[in-house]
């Protein structure tokens, strides 16, 4: 089956759809699901399953395990930096969009931050569904131009002599930040370390903080 894939045609079609369909997205999405099920193009049970998968299985816990292992296992870290997808192959994560995962490392003199200016590409396989701010126009527009200003809004002020590197996910490469291991975590197990690694730190808008002494 050949589908016409013409830009002018779709621009006109989008205009037509917008002028005819109701404005409430909840109504439209409900009608779309019923319609596709009736047409035999969709199973609602599959929709449920995807929601369960991203609620229960795929999320920033995956990335946190990678970070914790890199902090505690120098050989794993070396492999991770050279070829991330091979290094994490045994850890049981989905592939999804991460067939070209690249890990970029923060150091005291270099801070990395990830964005997708053209849409909202994000390493779902290791971080789950992106947070709302990552998908916002404000973040997409501003972070390539004023990363330090955006980071300040997240509460992260960088010294002038720290080099900032912004990674714009324009292809199917997916970027994940390896944050700095925080001080006073020498005795932590890999699991304990994974528990303190936040999603925001793996996107590059936060640092990992040493937890308060546990009682």
């Amino acid at each position, binding site marked *: 089956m050949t589908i016409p894939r013409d830009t*002018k045609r779709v621009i006109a079609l989008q205009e037509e*759809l917008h002028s005819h369909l109701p404005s409430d997205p909840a109504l439209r999405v409900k009608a779309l699901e019923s319609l596709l099920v009736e047409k035999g193009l*969709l199973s609602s049970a*599959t929709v449920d399953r995807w929601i369960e*998968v991203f609620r229960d299985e795929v999320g920033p816990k995956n990335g946190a395990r990678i970070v914790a292992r890199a902090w505690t296992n120098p050989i794993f870290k070396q492999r991770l930096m050279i070829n991330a997808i091979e290094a994490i192959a045994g850890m049981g994560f989905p592939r999804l969009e991460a067939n070209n995962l690249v890990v970029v490392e923060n150091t005291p003199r270099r801070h990395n931050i990830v964005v997708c200016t053209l849409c909202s590409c994000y390493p779902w396989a290791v971080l789950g569904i992106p947070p709302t701010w990552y998908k916002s126009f404000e973040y997409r*527009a501003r972070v390539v131009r004023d990363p330090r200003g955006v980071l300040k809004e997240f509460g992260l002020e960088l010294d002038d002599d720290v080099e900032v590197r912004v990674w714009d996910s324009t292809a199917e490469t997916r970027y994940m930040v390896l944050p700095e291991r925080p001080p006073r975590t020498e005795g932590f197990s890999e699991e304990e370390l994974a528990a303190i690694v936040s999603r925001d730190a793996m996107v590059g808008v936060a640092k990992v903080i040493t937890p308060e002494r546990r009682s």
Partner: protein
Amino acid sequence: MDGVHDMGGMQGFGPVDLSPGQPLLKTDWRARMFGIELSYVQPGGFNLDWMRHVMECMPPSAYLSSGYFDRWYWRDAAILANAGWVGIDELTSGKAAFRPAEAGDAPPPDAVPAILSHGVDSRRPSKGLPAFRLGDRVRAKFHSPLGATRLPRYLRGHVGAVEAYHGWHRLPDVSAHGDEQAEPLYCVGFLARDLWDDVTSPRDMVFADLWESYLEPA
């Protein structure tokens, strides 16, 4: 395409709203939309480059006033309507007036693990040596077709250096429109102060992954 989706460096946007998002609830329309997109039979097969481009073709004011999962709705509605698989009346009523011929069966829930473990892969076999080597200085072309492309506008005309070579990858400009072509893909690093008037940090950088045909020697 020079559209509002290409927003790197655009000014006029205020502070980032840091409110935490809602969790995925099966009853919420956003979660439904998320699941629908991953579950429905797409006309002509799942084509991520086409999907992105169809969203770029939203009316500019609608793009800027719609939320993330609502833009997914407009994308999928347009993908289906463009193929003639749904009509506007059907999208309004939610009632099917016809069934598209040649459409396959709806993926069942137990297809999910296979999709998860295989994923999307833009890598293609190498067809030769890349034109640029690590460290080469390259200029992003003024490339702005009326169609899909992944060369952001804020980089066009600027010079950077090749930081990494990713091998051959499917070219979105071509595959979005239904053909297949692959090219060497590079990560190119640009000095932020070269891109923007108002940057004072001497070493800050912006990196983007760019296909060979987007670049020329500088």
